[in-house]
């Protein structure tokens, strides 16, 4: 029997990088096959190639024994491949049914949609795989887990036999993950082949029949879950010679730099997303906040920066109550911020580097002189940053969008560090950047820590958290549920706390 998918020597180059370097992959029919790898290992590129969204430069693809060449997702769909995107491709204002049939609408004469037969087919598919959703609901009324089910139904509706799931658990809370896994097993029972991307190793080990590990765009191993441990997998993913963050000697001092007391934050719909959170960060300390994304970390950061007002509670910095201060006032008091999404929050992409370096510090010398911008001072300071933090750029007048992600991040880290903040909020500071830049960012944070900077580190990278932090607190559903010592905790224990799997405070 031919394999469901067979890839031989798939290579895809982008300007400056090789995203997929002669990738080989065999996915057997009716199995759940996991693809693991770090950010930037080339997983998403590979998925996009499989789904026809981009075309490989070299290599052969076979689906169920037939050699294929996809010009667009339509060809992939025709070949029986379906994709469940990480960011759901669903229109909020359309009904579930409308979203599902889109592009594959059963029609009567005159282009009329045959809603009756569409709904029948919808129910047939949904029931066959045990996926429960009301077809007449508007998508905006659905929970995240339900939306994912809609995405899966959408794929099955088109008769897909091979499903690609792109980091399906990233957006789910634990009980939704269980539900998803139950659905995935059911799909497998019904004869579907599933290929899914993940980098949460415990999940991969729990659900996959076969695991392929990608690193630097290459396939480094294909293993069975029974044969490996999470530790083995982690080593395969990162390689052995890669730097790991190491906090070194403790530099924690007695003075408290940042104190948060009973902080509660609400979202736009006035739902509480951070519940009465309290913690202190000392000078010279790195406090790590661990948690599955979507458990209130982003909102906590926003409240600390001052973008979202605190519903109740108190935030103070170096003894000053900053709860009601503006963002600018907080920054002028010495609050630094490395944003979690640098393109969205950190950069003016079309502007020159020196204007980007000034962002957040534009009220103070050397960037400003009275009411004027000090262009000379700002350029000089930016040149210092570029030199000191190893930002690879032709010059400080180069627009930020021309730089690679790692260099953009180094610029952001540099601009915050040269301002010598007393408190630094770092949200996923090394997300999506290369290994070299990652090590540089870690070094920078460690160095500033020695000088007395207090750091609040929010990260999804458990190694980063364990390696850099002096103390780790775990955030789950808007609450701090555990405080851990990074010296003794293992990634697995940390993961258990993050998902509430150890029973903890989570009911």
């Amino acid at each position, binding site marked *: 029997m031919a394999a469901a998918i067979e890839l031989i020597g798939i290579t895809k180059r982008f300007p400056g990088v090789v995203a997929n370097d002669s990738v080989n992959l065999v996915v057997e029919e009716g199995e759940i096959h996991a693809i693991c790898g770090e950010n930037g290992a080339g997983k998403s590129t590979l998925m996009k190639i499989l789904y026809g969204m981009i075309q490989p430069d070299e290599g052969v693809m076979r689906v169920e024994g037939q050699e294929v060449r996809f010009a667009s*997702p339509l060809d992939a769909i025709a070949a029986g491949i379906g994709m469940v995107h990480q960011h759901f491709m669903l*229109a*909020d204002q359309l009904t579930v049914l409308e*979203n599902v*049939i*889109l*592009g594959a609408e059963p029609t009567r004469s*005159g282009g009329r*949609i045959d*809603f009756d037969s569409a709904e029948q087919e919808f129910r047939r598919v949904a029931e066959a795989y045990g996926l429960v959703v009301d077809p007449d609901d508007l998508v905006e009324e659905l929970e995240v887990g339900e939306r994912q089910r809609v995405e899966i139904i959408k794929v099955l509706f088109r008769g897909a036999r091979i499903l690609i799931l792109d980091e399906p658990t990233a957006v789910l809370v634990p009980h939704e993950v269980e539900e998803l896994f139950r659905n995935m097993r059911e799909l497998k029972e019904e004869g579907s082949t599933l290929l899914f991307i993940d980098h949460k190793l415990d999940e991969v080990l729990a659900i996959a029949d076969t695991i392929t590990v990608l690193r630097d765009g290459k396939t480094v191993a294909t293993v069975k879950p029974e044969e490996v441990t999470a530790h083995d997998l982690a080593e395969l993913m990162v390689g052995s010679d890669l730097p790991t963050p190491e906090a070194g000697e403790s530099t924690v001092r007695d003075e408290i730099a940042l104190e948060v007391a009973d902080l509660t934050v609400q979202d736009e719909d006035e739902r509480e997303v951070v519940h009465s959170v309290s913690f202190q960060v000392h000078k010279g300390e790195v406090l790590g906040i661990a948690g599955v994304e979507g458990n209130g970390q982003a909102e906590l950061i926003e409240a600390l920066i001052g973008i979202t007002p605190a519903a109740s509670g108190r935030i103070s910095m170096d003894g000053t109550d900053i709860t009601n201060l503006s963002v600018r006032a907080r920054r002028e008091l010495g609050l630094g911020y490395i944003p979690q999404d640098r393109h969205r929050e950190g950069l003016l992409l079309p502007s020159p580097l020196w204007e980007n370096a000034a962002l957040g510090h534009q009220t103070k010398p050397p960037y400003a002189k009275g009411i004027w911008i000090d262009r000379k001072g700002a350029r000089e300071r930016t040149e210092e940053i570029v030199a000191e933090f190893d930002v690879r750029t032709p010059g400080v007048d180069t627009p930020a969008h021309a730089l690679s992600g790692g260099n953009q991040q180094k610029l952001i880290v540099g601009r915050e560090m040269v301002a010598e903040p007393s408190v630094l909020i770092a949200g996923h500071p090394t997300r999506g950047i290369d290994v070299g830049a990652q090590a540089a960012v870690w070094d920078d944070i460690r160095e500033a820590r020695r000088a007395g900077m207090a750091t609040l580190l929010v990260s999804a990278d458990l190694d980063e958290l364990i390696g850099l932090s002096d103390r780790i607190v775990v955030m789950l559903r808007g609450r701090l549920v555990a405080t851990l010592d990074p010296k003794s905790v293992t990634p697995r224990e940390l993961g258990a706390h993050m998902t509430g799997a150890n029973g903890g405070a989570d009911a």
Partner: protein
Amino acid sequence: MKRFGALPAYVRWPIYAFVAVFVLTVSQNLDGTDRLTSVTTAQSMLRWAVPILLAGLGGLYSERAGVVNIGLEGMMIVGTWMGAWGALKFGPWWGIVAALVGGALGGLLHAVATVSFGVDHIISGVAINILAPGLTRFLSSIVEIPGWSITQSPRVPGVGSATLPILAGGKIGGWTSPDLLGWIGRKDWFLVSDLADLAKGLVTRAPWVTIGALVFVPFTVWLLWRTRFGLRLRICGEYPAAGEVQGINVYKYKYIAVIISGALAGLGGAFIAGPELSGIYLEGQTQGRGFVGLAALIFGNWKPGGVMGASLLFGYPFGIGLRDLDGSASHALILVSAVGLGLVALSAFRRGRKADAGLALSLGALSVVWYLLSDSVESVWINIFPYVIVLLVLVFFAQRLRMPAADGEIYRRGEA
């Protein structure tokens, strides 16, 4: 409120209409005028409403596909000229065709700029609005039709009208059918006669373009919500990337939508220049109706029925103002506005929005004071009525309006 919103559209709209007429009738009796609900008022209202409706529907197609079209005004201007030119050169129906084509070309231009080249929708729309009057002026300077000057045309022939038989006394073959609505209207029954008069106005000597425009409203509902074409068009306005990964040619649907949009605006222009409204092409005669159409689209919450309701509402004060030389009937409208603001205040209060309620109440009180201290209203205030209404609607109901999620965003192929 929520339960009412859940009712189907065909139940809600008659209720809206009934409430509107009720408010008018009450105000009319308080004020002692009879013009608020007369046959001629209804007819003028409709006549003013149709171009707004056509522009609004034009906006609907475009924005449902995610392209903001403030170039409607320019496309409408092209429509006035082309409508007059086509009708004079080749005959009335060709005027309609020419206006549709002229508007559609304007839409095509907007689509090329916004869809293919990714120019900001507002910028492209502004450019079209600047281009259009120049173009018509130029065309006027080279056209060779006797009596056509640089700013105006000779009389434009129209495509005629029809009266509905039985209800309004229209003819079937040679037989003059009874005039049921007219008969009720003459009875002077409270509310019932008022309703009959308004209804008769709508179905008596209705121009074919008007009938076409009104029929186009339910057709649009069917086309956009019941067909494959409609679903695919709407995904372009809600989440184009989701459409593209399902193999839908987003650019194609956007092009089609914007071209339809321009054609409808052009038809609205033909209506304005035709005997339905003016009977003559006159430079600057659209008077911002393209923008009013946009306002109707917003007021109507990007839905065909809503756009129609808004158009009638906006057309209404013009319908009154037209024959209201002493400004007394328009004066009664202040009272209507006060009642309306009172209702808004009540609804805001019930939803717990006290500040809104207070604001609406004070504005309503101001209207009452204005009403009591004056005897007539200058026509300038009638002219700005739709704009004020839309600003008020936005102030009080902006959160409840739902524009297509990806409306106005520049979509590049391959972003998915």
